[in-house]
């Protein structure tokens, strides 16, 4: 059964049962991945799946149920389960099904270009990148992860108010972890490339960058604990912004879970910071014209010169706040309830190159890796306490690599201390189901702990 047939079966039964307010969210996806190790294919994944989630609203209370099995029996089962689930809910904020009066931005057509690439070509890309990383320097001793991947997703939102939407998106690329060793210690470097179209993907440069990242860390040592100015690599800025995306989520704000509750139209970070949500970024892999409830997505300025301008909403939270929905409902997969997230969170670039940021900072740290985000960064409190690696900067130049240090602080306080912004907003390491684009950032001060004893 395809989505259309399953939807018709579901909608027929729902109407017969006298339901008035319901939605079927569907997703079909395929993923393809090849892993390479020592010049051979180590792993190969070629997969597809689909599923749907039914939501009904009775007296403002939503119940949901999902299934990957599309048959007339499961059509009836998810309706019954959703109705039963809705009866348990006692939340006071009503849920809504989109009534469909918005207009959608036109997106480039979905072409499924990656699926048309011959597998041999994909294998060649992978072997090429592994080779390039190894050949980069004799100290590159191992490539434990070298992967080519591509994926496509098709989304469907259909509801009892006549909304029937469908779109597809795709993306592909690769990632590589290189290990460099000087015989005493090993260091790893990770790099990735991901874009909507296979045209112009540069796996070799990516692989060389990964090798270079590992290589540069050799000979790293710890430093003394204290307060240091720091420059954070754009990838790490992106990781911190994922905490921020929790705080601008209107659902979290309304439930009192966000530090930003009550801060609308007030300064929350440095005036140098402007953050927007973009539903479409050229070449991006998270672009989408409608959200998981069918609402049109749109460009949204979230923070303008340090002032918090809006939260991200789905229909329920928008109605509660008396504002229009912002098109930020999301469902990572059909088995997840609707949540709120940006599509592409973009921190606007500034005027300075990385070298200029280092010169401006003079003495400090350039932090390229943070570890422990899922445990050491608390989205409720904004507290960070993370393992870090990077470089000691002296007289505006890289002096030596640094390891075994931690950075601690509060993410909002830290973003209040922005003293310089890099000149390019780049796609940072993908995590979650949205993309983040940021520049390198220079902060005037951060708490750093290291293993060197104070002199």
């Amino acid at each position, binding site marked *: 059964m395809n989505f259309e047939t399953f939807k018709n079966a579901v909608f027929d039964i729902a109407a017969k049962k006298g339901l008035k307010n319901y939605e079927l969210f569907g997703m079909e996806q395929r993923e393809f991945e090849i892993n390479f190790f020592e010049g*051979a294919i180590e792993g190969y994944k070629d997969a597809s799946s689909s599923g749907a989630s039914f939501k009904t609203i009775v007296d403002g209370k939503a119940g949901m149920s999902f299934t990957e099995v599309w048959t007339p029996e499961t059509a009836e089962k998810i309706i019954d389960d959703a109705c039963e689930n809705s009866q348990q809910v006692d939340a006071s904020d009503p849920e809504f099904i989109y009534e469909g009066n918005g207009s959608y931005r036109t997106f480039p057509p979905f072409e499924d270009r990656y699926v048309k690439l011959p597998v041999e070509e994909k294998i060649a890309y992978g072997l090429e990148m592994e080779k390039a990383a190894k050949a980069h320097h004799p100290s590159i001793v191992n490539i434990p992860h070298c992967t080519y991947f591509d994926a496509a997703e098709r989304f469907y939102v259909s509801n009892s108010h006549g909304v029937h939407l469908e779109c597809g998106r795709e993306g592909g690329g690769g990632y590589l972890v290189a290990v460099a060793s000087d015989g005493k210690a090993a260091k790893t470097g990770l790099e990735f490339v991901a874009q909507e179209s296979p045209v112009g993907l540069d796996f070799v440069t990516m692989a060389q960058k990964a090798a270079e990242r590992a290589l540069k860390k050799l000979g790293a040592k710890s430093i003394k604990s204290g307060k240091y100015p720091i420059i954070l690599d754009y990838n790490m800025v992106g990781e911190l912004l994922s905490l921020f995306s929790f705080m601008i989520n209107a659902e979290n704000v309304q439930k009192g879970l966000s530090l930003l509750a009550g801060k609308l139209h007030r300064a929350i970070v440095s005036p140098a910071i402007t953050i927007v949500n973009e539903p479409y970024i050229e070449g991006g892999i998270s672009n989408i014209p409608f959200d998981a409830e069918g609402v049109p997505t749109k460009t949204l300025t979230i923070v303008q010169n340090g002032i918090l301008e809006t939260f991200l909403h789905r229909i329920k939270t928008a109605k509660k706040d008396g504002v229009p929905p912002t098109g930020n409902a999301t469902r990572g997969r059909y088995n997840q309830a609707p949540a709120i997230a940006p599509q592409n969170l973009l921190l606007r670039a500034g005027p300075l190159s990385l070298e200029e940021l280092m010169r401006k900072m003079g003495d400090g740290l350039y932090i390229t890796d943070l570890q422990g985000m899922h445990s*050491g960064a608390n989205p409720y409190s904004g507290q960070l306490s993370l393992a870090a690696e990077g470089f000691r900067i002296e007289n505006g130049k890289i002096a030596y690599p640094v390891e075994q240090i931690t950075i601690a602080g509060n993410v909002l306080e830290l973003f209040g201390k922005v003293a310089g912004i890099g000149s390019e907003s780049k796609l940072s390491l993908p995590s979650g189901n949205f993309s983040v684009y940021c520049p390198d950032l220079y902060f005037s001060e951060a708490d750093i702990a290291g293993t060197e004893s104070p002199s």
Partner: protein
Amino acid sequence: MLQKQEMEEVLSILLEAGGDFGELFFEDTRSAEMSMIDGKLEKVNSGRICGIGLRAFLNTNAVYAYTNDLSIENLKGTARRIGKALKGLPKPQEPFILNEKHYETKLPVLLPFEIIEKREKKHVMQMANEGARTYAPSGSALADLIGQIEVSYLEKDQYVRIANTDGMLTEDRRRRTRLTTRVIAAENGQKETGSSSPGYGTGFEFYNLIDPREVGQEAARIALRMIRADYAPAGMMPVVIGNGFGGVIFHEACGHSLEATSVAKGASVFCGKVGQKIANDCVNAVDDGTIPNAWGTSTVDDEGTPTQRNQLIENGILKGYLVDRLNARKMGANPTGSGRRENYTYAPTSRMSNTFLMPGQSIPEEIIANTERGLYAKTMGGGSVQPTTGEFNFAVLEGYLIEKGRVVKPVRGATLIGKGHEVLEKIDMIGNDLTRSQGMCGSISGSIPADVGQPTIRVSELLVGGRNA
């Protein structure tokens, strides 16, 4: 569901197309999740995932596909497609026979989820909420600091049927449930969180074994302790790590680096170290997937191998690794019942199950009394590790400063970092109070339930990251 003969046909195709080993993993999982905020049930979601993962090996190369179009035509087509990707020589196959084997379940259930009404499940959540809400006496200053209380309830009933071209056919049913409470305390525009989330490999009878109120109380206790705590000190110092979830230090600092996933590629600091001393003499560590009804237990692993008790470290000596079928080929080792995956959309790989440090002789109080100045990390948050370098980090949820052998004040925002192989040698005291706690462990084969555990231990020196340098 797929018939035995159909499985045999699909598996044969994997061999015919060029593989030297084929595996079929069928999964039909029902789950439900409910979330409550401040005593009000906000979300109820339930459903079913159902699909098949096909895998084939040729020597040490592997291909994987999954699909939830379970028609025999599609499965045969998928098998043919991925079998070819191995680039082996196609060869005609004798039809082979699957011999079904049943094992006694290690996850027996008394009260299946489907016979319990949803309002009873909701009642359990309400009890946890009430435990958190009433932890501080109403009207007291502390009671005002309690902000939001989030309670979630999860139940999962996973049925798997696994067959391979060695003729193995077996099944397993894993039912697990977990109650999570997170309490947010707020004061002067700051927030701190406390949480507690016990889980078990049983049916609904779990909630007769524990008092859900205590789950709420524990979360409230931590949040209230931490909201008025000073920031943690920073620098190298002795660290006493509390029992139970404190075992995450072994899980991160050492366990991941003992998984064949890293070891087979030479990407672990513990490669080639079996039989060698890697830890202080007092360290004994075990991974045991057989503990009845434990959170990380299964009867067979996700490759159909019965789970077993694996001694990882004995008196400081490395005894072995955790090995799945594919890496067993690469390493010339035997699988250890450690092939695990989140669901059919992931190929399995070697993972931990219930992993813990064995108890020692010391009384926990004595460990603190013997520490001149340091950090007592009573309750840990999660962490992560890079197996290649052994560098790990993890967060302290509830910490205290130790001075002159006494716990003097709570401290917050601490993180512990180090290198696993170094820290194992620095474990110098081990308590007699082993307990286990539940976690979700994320790695390349997805997010899986795993127990961590330990008695109270002391690490003679560890870098504490905090704000008071």
